[in-house]
């Protein structure tokens, strides 16, 4: 049997009688613990305002993810009535749940985030998904990841994972393989085709560019109820993900899996559709799109301004990658020098090896520790016979018969970058060295291709779109920008976060709200004090199995082979659970509550268990002046109230069946 709620959204006046009666009955003091919360939504421009509320107690879900993640097994679902109860004696008792010291911050326990989550640009619930993986709840883990992450397959492979840099497991031995765990669940949970999300907003949004920023914005906007159309000039969606990241790191079918999901929820992607950045924007706005988001990325490869840079045998890194991905033949010699120290440079080098180059060098300005490319990438590149040369500047490309005959480099010191990313350094005298190569690939960064951009959208000195760094609005009303086209080249996860922020402000704009919001409380993950228990057992990080080098060089097969289940569980178990409150993080409704007190223990709605015994309904039901709430056996409620829908309004979970049925308010 399952007890649960009925909520008639059209009757709720937002009066909070339920919430206060609940506090009175359960003697919950004023403060952050609110067993019954009433979420408020205001939509539409003045005077066409639409207001709705959603009663948000614990919904006593079928899949109790809160119970699955609890390290103390303090949460259980009662067989006899389906009520999810918490044993507050057990909560945070045997196993610690949260080892962060909140000192020096004004954050409540439930607001504190682990260093990994703070450093993740999209604030993924890393400890909670790790806990679900550790318990073998892979489907639930993926569900949790998807609540914030539009491209889990991609970010399970090519993320720069700043989270791992901050993971405090490194103070025990090594950081948790957070990215690989994400990749594991998305690879191992059978792909499901989600339902198309309903359009509940009158507006449509046009997104120009189908890279990570555009798709992330689209994913959030479609979940807010907007219609979303993404325009992609190329033949495949994904932007740089599809054109510039080599197959051995991100196979196209993996990217397609993420994009299929986004299309299934309702994002319309129009490939081979170039939007003219002048009149074309007018056309989109005139065609009824309320907002145009420019998320074109920065895809134009740059070459160094040195002599010989235009010789036959010189290539721009991104174009080189694009040619490979699109199946074009590339004019690659035997001996290749890649100039640059980022992931694109390493991608070029490793791709060059796979295409048959015998000798591949990489030369970059940065010293080894400061190379922007991922360590594992550099390591794998070296395994594949690529030579990395650091702290070098390339001064000219040598010529022989109009072709590349080598590159002259010097050692440098005192490298610094200014605010526009321009380097300065001193050349060390008498350190000239010539790389004997026939091909040079420049992988020194990309700029946006903004040809034909409408004059009323301003650009920055570095060739990006100038937009308000806080609200993402361009100089032209109704046009927003996000991702690399605005910020210059960044990482995939940064672009995703940028797209999500743009979606947030696009929503405010379309709702006629003031764009600016209160600045978020930010905390430097390095400032978080984590008190690691002395008795933590050393357990080395699971190594990602990789393809043998000889197999790698003969194809573009994916190098990383993925964790086995046992490896994933073992790895996930290494998470220290720095911040705690996993139950709250895992719950799509944030129902678990913590009071603001020393060692706060979880509390939440228990459906007024003791009142049922007296034949009474929960106090919130009895208290509701407009009779908007009811409670009972879910199946009986369905019979009693007829045509009702389930409460998906605030629920982005796809697998958790909440025990509430809702009569939604009509717009």
């Amino acid at each position, binding site marked *: 049997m399952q007890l649960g709620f009925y909520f008639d959204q*059209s*009757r*709720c*006046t*937002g*009066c*909070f*009688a339920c*919430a*206060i*009666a609940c*506090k*009175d*009955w359960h*003697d919950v*003091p*004023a*403060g952050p613990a609110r067993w019954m919360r*009433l979420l408020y939504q*205001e939509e*539409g*421009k*003045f*005077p066409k*305002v639409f*207001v709705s509320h959603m009663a948000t107690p614990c919904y006593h879900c079928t899949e109790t993810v809160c119970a699955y993640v609890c390290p103390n097994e303090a949460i259980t679902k009662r067989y006899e009535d389906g009520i999810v109860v918490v044993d507050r004696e057990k909560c945070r008792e045997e196993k610690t749940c949260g080892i962060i010291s909140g000192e020096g911050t004004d954050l409540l326990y439930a607001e504190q985030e682990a260093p990994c989550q703070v450093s993740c640009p999209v604030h993924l619930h890393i400890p909670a998904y790790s806990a679900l993986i550790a318990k073998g709840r892979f489907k639930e883990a993926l569900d949790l990841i998807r609540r914030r992450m539009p491209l889990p397959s991609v970010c399970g492979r090519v993320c720069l994972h700043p989270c791992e840099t901050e993971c405090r497991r490194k103070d025990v031995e090594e950081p948790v393989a957070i990215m690989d765990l994400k990749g594991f669940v998305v690879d191992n949970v059978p792909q499901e085709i989600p339902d198309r999300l309903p359009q509940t907003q009158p507006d449509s949004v046009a997104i120009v560019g189908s890279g990570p920023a555009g798709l992330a914005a689209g994913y959030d906007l479609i979940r807010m109820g907007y219609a979303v159309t993404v325009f992609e000039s190329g033949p495949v969606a994904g932007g740089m993900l599809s054109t510039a990241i080599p197959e051995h790191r991100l196979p196209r079918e993996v990217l397609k899996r993420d994009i299929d999901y986004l299309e299934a929820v309702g994002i319309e992607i129009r490939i081979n559709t170039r939007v003219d950045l002048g009149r074309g924007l007018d056309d989109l706005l005139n065609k009824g799109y309320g907002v145009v988001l420019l998320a074109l990325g920065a895809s134009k490869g740059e070459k160094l301004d040195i002599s010989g840079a235009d010789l036959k045998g010189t290539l721009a890194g991104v174009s080189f990658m694009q040619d490979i991905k699109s199946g074009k033949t590339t004019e690659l010699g035997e001996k290749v020098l890649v100039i640059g120290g980022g992931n694109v440079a390493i991608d070029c080098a490793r791709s060059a090896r796979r295409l048959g180059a015998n000798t591949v060098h990489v030369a970059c300005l940065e010293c080894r520790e400061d190379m922007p490319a991922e360590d594992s990438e550099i390591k794998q590149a070296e395994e594949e016979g690529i030579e990395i040369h650091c702290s070098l500047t390339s001064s000219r490309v040598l010529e022989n018969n109009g072709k590349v005959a080598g590159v002259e480099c010097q050692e440098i010191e005192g490298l610094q970058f200014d605010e526009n990313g321009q380097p300065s350094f001193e050349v060390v005298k008498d350190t000239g060295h010539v790389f004997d190569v026939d091909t040079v690939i420049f992988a020194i960064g990309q700029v946006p291709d903004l040809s034909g951009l409408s004059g009323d959208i301003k650009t920055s000195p570095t060739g990006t779109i100038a937009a308000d760094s806080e609200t993402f609005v361009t100089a032209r009303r109704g046009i927003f920008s996000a991702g690399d086209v605005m910020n210059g080249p960044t990482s995939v996860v940064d672009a995703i976060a940028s797209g999500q922020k743009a979606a947030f402000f696009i929503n405010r704009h379309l*709702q*006629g*709200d*003031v*764009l*600016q*919001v*209160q600045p978020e409380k930010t905390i430097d993950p390095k400032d978080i004090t984590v008190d690691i228990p002395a008795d933590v057992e050393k357990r080395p990080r699971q190594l990602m199995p990789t393809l043998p080098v000889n197999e790698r060089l003969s194809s573009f097969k994916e190098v990383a082979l993925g964790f086995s289940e046992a490896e994933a569980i073992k790895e996930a178990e290494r998470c220290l659970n720095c911040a705690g409150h996993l139950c709250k993080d895992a719950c799509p409704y944030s129902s678990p509550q913590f009071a603001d007190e020393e060692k706060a223990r979880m509390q939440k709605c228990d459906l007024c268990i003791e009142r049922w015994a007296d034949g009474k309904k929960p*106090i919130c039901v*009895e*208290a*509701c*002046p*407009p*009779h908007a709430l009811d409670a009972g056996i879910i199946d009986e409620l369905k019979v009693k109230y007829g045509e009702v829908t389930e409460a998906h309004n605030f629920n982005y979970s796809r697998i958790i069946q909440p025990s509430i049925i809702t009569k939604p308010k009509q717009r």
Partner: protein
Amino acid sequence: MSAEDNSQANGEQIVLSTSAFDCGGRCPLRVHVKDGVITRIEGDDYADEDKQLRACWRGRAYRHWIYHPDRLLYPMKRIGERGTGQFERVTWNEAMDTIVSELNRIKETYGNGAIYYGGGGHMGALHTAGALAKALAMFGGYTAGYGNISSEGAVWAVQTSYGDVMVGHSREDLLNSKLIIMWGWDPVRMVSGTDAINNLIKAKDAGIPIISIGPRYEDSAATLAAEWIPIIPGTDAAMMAAVAYVIVRENLHDQAFLDKYTVGFDKFKEYVIGIEDGVEKTPAWAEAICGVPAQRIADLARRYATTKPACLMDCQGPARAAFGEQYNRCAIALTAMTGNIGKPGGSACGGLMGIPYGHMFRAMGIPGMRNPTEAGGPSIRGTLDLNLRLVRRFHVNRIWDGFLKGTAGGYPADIKMAWFAGGNALNQRGNTNKGVQALKSLEFIVNQDLFLTPTGRYADIVLPVKSFAEKNELTRPWPSGPYLCYSNQAIEPLGECKTDWEIGCLLAEKLGFKDFNDKTEDEWLRTFVAENPEYQRYIEDYDEFKSESTHRLQLDEPYIAFKAQIEDPENNPFNTPSGKIEIFSQRLADLNNPLTPPVPKYIIAEREDRNHPLAKRYPLQLLSPHPRVRVHSTLQNVDWLVEVDPHVMWINPADAEPRGIRDGDEVYVFNDRGKLAIKAWVTRRIIPGVVSIYEGSWYNPDEEGIDRGGCVNVLTDDTYSPGGAAALKTVLVETTKA
């Protein structure tokens, strides 16, 4: 403790009580008491759930109000400067002796007229300040205030048109309507009868269209209304005149009804179609004033006039304006023109919406005594001439100016002492900063309340008062029932608290009035029940009533205001000089004052209107509606309430954005009278050009005189309309980021 002693296994009792706030509800509360302490509250458990009288969030938070750590538990005397809040505990004896000595001194030095007395707050039969007023009358008298802050415009309007204040229908009659127009009415917030919301929702569910008109998209509108018509504050009468214009021009009015039951429609028509002043009150004319598109006004007029029956619900808030009474008078004219008065599903308008069953206005009290200082004044019975009412009294929204200027300023007395029996006047009357000066100018002040209110901080003696959990009392609903209540005492009094009645008796005793009180609480309550015709009719047994607590009156059919007058006009004339509904009032014509015209009119506020030059400096109109989570200033700082609805200023993005104001920013709101600090709530639920701050938050000035408590009355003015409405919503302000 006498109550329904439902002793439970754990030693818990359930005491049946009700709220007694000055609010629009009166709600049964089942108070759980264990070991003399209230542990939790349940609401009405009437078997028919649909007819349960469910308490609102305010009643639900009752426990944290009664046991609030700031409760005043002992008499105290002031030891610091007025306003600093420095007090020390004294005995009741010392407090009362000081008061009596000051009363005698003031009386001897200045005469009884120098004593101002005002009450408010507790809504019951016995434990009100009636005994105190009587004791002061026996002492030789006092000067009082006239009018009430909330509803005076509406009262004046219904007295003019109907000669009767019972202008409501039973709330279930809403279901008989075919169209409901909530014009300035937000029953979700101000409750308007405990049963109002549920009946309105049932009406909505039954498919009855509901339209809301007002500057704010109120909670009621958001829940109920299919259509929201935002309107500029203070211009309702203009839009109503245009509605009348369309109805007249298109001949949609009910001429037979007007002929039979009303007088003076022709005069109103002359005003509306422009014969009187050469201005046709067309929708286009109104649009320029009220901001509602002309087409929308015309559509509304046609829909209202052609849908029968239709229920136009005006209220009291829009009437708290410079010419607020004209809004209620225009509404009455409209419902008369459409023949909706006295009919099921219709409405009489007039804003008071009360029904004469179990109504609070008809509560008993201890027998009073005529105030000697008012002897020999003009006869004011039934007069519409406000000036006559203010010969011997101060207008309640003008006491501060009166205290400061006295007889030299044309006021009835030179006040030297004030006794406030609750009411928190400093906070709840216009122009709080002037009030501070006024209170500082007095020689002696007594304040009695449950808390040390902002008014109390200026008093010389403060007296602690019991909450309704600490006494037995007869309570009644306002404005709709029909039911009668007995609120049982749940707990022993906290500290040394007394009720207002007990304080009155104590004063009488100290003044040497022997035999002032000859009954116990229980004897008085029994007497009231025995002697009041309504209790006589409905209550058979006092003790049963006491244990039942809430006694529902079974009416044969929903109450319809003026049904008798409409069905049988010959035998049931209206209580007006003409015996009819007075759209034109000869009594007003006789006053010959263009500001109280004999027919309802839109009159432009002469000051603080958005078209006034002052608007260049203070471009925003300010609303000060009744709060959601307080009852006026009662329930301030009840933590459970504050956290669900913090005190904020509503501001439209169109006004916030150019001022750089973000949601949640602290802002200053100011004009020439004062400045307050508050958080901004940026919302599309308010018309641009208008900001709104709920009244009642407690005045708490900092060293620079900026009110950190967000008391809206530091911005409002101490003025009143020609009909006597406190003009608290005709106010201009500016706001900036703090």
